[in-house]
């Protein structure tokens, strides 16, 4: 028994912060739905937030850990949504429905998106910074246009693809379960030699090559995994909505996902989850609150809040407040103080945090992203 307690105390709880947080949310809301006390709008909000979290974690791999700027994440999601939705439709034609159909659709949607992740990853091997940003942006537009111009029988054309409904009460449970899967894959990857290789490429590609890292392989790997999970998010989207319309997946959406990653802090998974939640919540609430003539105010308020968040995150005057009140300090307090076993800190799987390289004004206008070099390309070919 006492051995068990020692073991329990030795668990590095901080590692599991993300799992614990997501599981708690899942548990609370599952109980609430079972008690039938959740209105439809809350379920809708939960689904949206869940999808955003998957997107934020998956893009975080490419932007935060690999250090490449991708502006086409909505494109992978679009592929997942259409392919997953179509698969579900075909399955329901042959009488397969419910959770089983959903799982098959997820696999098909994720694999298709992964294939496109590979294809987009190929130029990523040669292009850097803004050039890659343009290619991914173009990719997203191409995917969108292709689906918009599909025939009515195949993908529904401009009217969008009608997707089979899934029991709305339980969809968010499935989405949150996929967040846990996504988290497990990302965190285990980042805390392994393969994750170290990816962060090494981000920090210094030339040195990574000289240290024996196969840069080609790991860039492609990061793009493929990231695209696959965006595909999962897309399939979830198609189940959460009765139609999938390509116009939703424009570059604004890609940029919104990027904002989630950047606001959360590059290479910070927990931060990405929190900012995805906050941004999606804001977006949905503002859309429902500001209707009619006031709808034009939505973007204004939204932008204003983002600016305030950025100021809070960066203003030197607020340094003290930031250091005192943040999630990290909170988890430290809860988990560290309670265990009397001292930590071997290097064993914490400390994530490497990059100072935010992408600046806010570059995010708010695509023109700027295209003009300025966002991630400093290692210009010197020679020493």
């Amino acid at each position: 028994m006492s051995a068990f307690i020692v073991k329990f105390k030795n668990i590095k709880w901080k590692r599991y912060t993300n799992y614990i947080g997501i599981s708690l949310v899942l548990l609370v809301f599952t109980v609430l739905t079972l008690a039938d006390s959740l209105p439809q709008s809350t379920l809708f909000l939960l689904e949206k937030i869940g999808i955003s979290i998957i997107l934020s974690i998956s893009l975080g791999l490419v932007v935060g850990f690999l250090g490449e700027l991708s502006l086409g994440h909505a494109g992978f999601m679009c592929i997942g949504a259409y392919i997953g939705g179509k698969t579900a439709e075909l399955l329901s034609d042959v009488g397969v429905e419910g959770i089983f159909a959903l799982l098959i659709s997820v696999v098909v949607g994720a694999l298709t998106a992964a294939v496109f992740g590979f294809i987009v990853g190929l130029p990523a091997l040669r292009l850097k910074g803004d050039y890659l940003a343009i290619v991914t942006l173009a990719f997203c537009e191409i995917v969108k246009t292709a689906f918009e111009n599909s025939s009515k029988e195949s993908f529904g054309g401009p009217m969008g693809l009608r997707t089979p409904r899934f029991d709305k009460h339980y969809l968010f449970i499935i989405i949150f379960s996929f967040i846990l899967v996504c988290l497990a894959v990302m965190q285990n990857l980042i805390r392994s030699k393969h994750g170290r290789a990816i962060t090494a490429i981000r920090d210094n590609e030339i040195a990574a090559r000289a240290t024996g890292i196969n840069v080609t392989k790991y860039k492609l790997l990061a793009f493929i995994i990231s695209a696959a999970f965006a595909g999962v998010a897309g399939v979830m989207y198609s189940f959460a909505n009765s139609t999938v319309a390509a116009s939703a997946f424009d570059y604004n959406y890609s940029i919104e996902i990027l904002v989630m990653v950047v606001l959360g802090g590059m290479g910070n998974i927990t931060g990405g989850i929190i900012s995805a939640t906050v941004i999606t919540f804001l977006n949905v609430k503002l859309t429902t609150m500001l209707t009619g003539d006031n709808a034009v105010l939505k973007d204004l308020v939204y932008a204003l809040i983002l600016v305030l968040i950025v100021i809070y995150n960066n203003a030197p005057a607020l340094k003290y407040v930031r250091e005192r009140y943040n999630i990290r300090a909170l988890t430290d307090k809860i988990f560290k103080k309670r265990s009397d076993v001292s930590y071997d800190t290097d064993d914490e799987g400390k994530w490497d945090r990059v100072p935010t390289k992408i600046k806010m004004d570059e995010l708010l206008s695509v023109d700027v992203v295209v003009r300025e070099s966002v991630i400093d390309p290692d210009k010197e070919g020679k020493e």
Partner: protein
Amino acid sequence: MCEYVLKTEGLGISFGGLRAVDGVELRVRKKQIYGLIGPNGAGKTTVFNMLTGVYQPTRGTFYLDGEELKGLSQDKINQKGIARTFQNIRLFNNMTVVRNVMVGFHNLPKYKCSFIDSIFRTKRHRDTERAMRARAKEILSIFGLLDERNLLAYNLPYGKQRKLEIARALATNPKLLLLDEPAAGMNPQETSELMETIRFVRDKFDMTILLIEHDMSLVAGICDELTVLNFGQTLACGETSEVLKDPEVVKAYLGD
């Protein structure tokens, strides 16, 4: 066994019309500390870049332990056994010191662990991770960096960053270590400490070392043999003491 660890034959490269390096013949024996010196812009770093696959030589070739490595990619060359440091330090700045070294273990067969193993955190994953960390700590303690292992690399003082770069290169278990101006920016005391470290590395790891250096006291102190480059061509080569007396070499260094 082959007589020379590193052998280059007529190694050269042109950038446009400029013959940056031409006809360089290096013969480096096992456990030697071999110096590559020359005035600024002589082409020393360019030689390193060719030996590590950053540049493809346009003329000539080179062999490591008798095996021709010309044309291989950078990571393949590293796997074959050439590791290097850089003239301007290149660390993985946002990673901790210990993880910088662990990146060096990436290709060692001993620490083989597939992507799938890592995703599912199998026993193999946990065992190799633990073994890598333990080995990394050993290497760090050799370089006196153990206490700083949890710092981010860019928080290290300059001298220690240089040491960490050498530690990371050694972690890849090379046959030949290339050091590009390891003493640059160091004070005399740090330089003499570095000399000790380099000698120690040679003895402890049975390492063969090729180094570029401007600091003549360091070169005279630890190099067994030298090659002097000037305008991309070999000006002199041979025993350190003799080469440093060569009037041509003195002239190239001091100007006419």
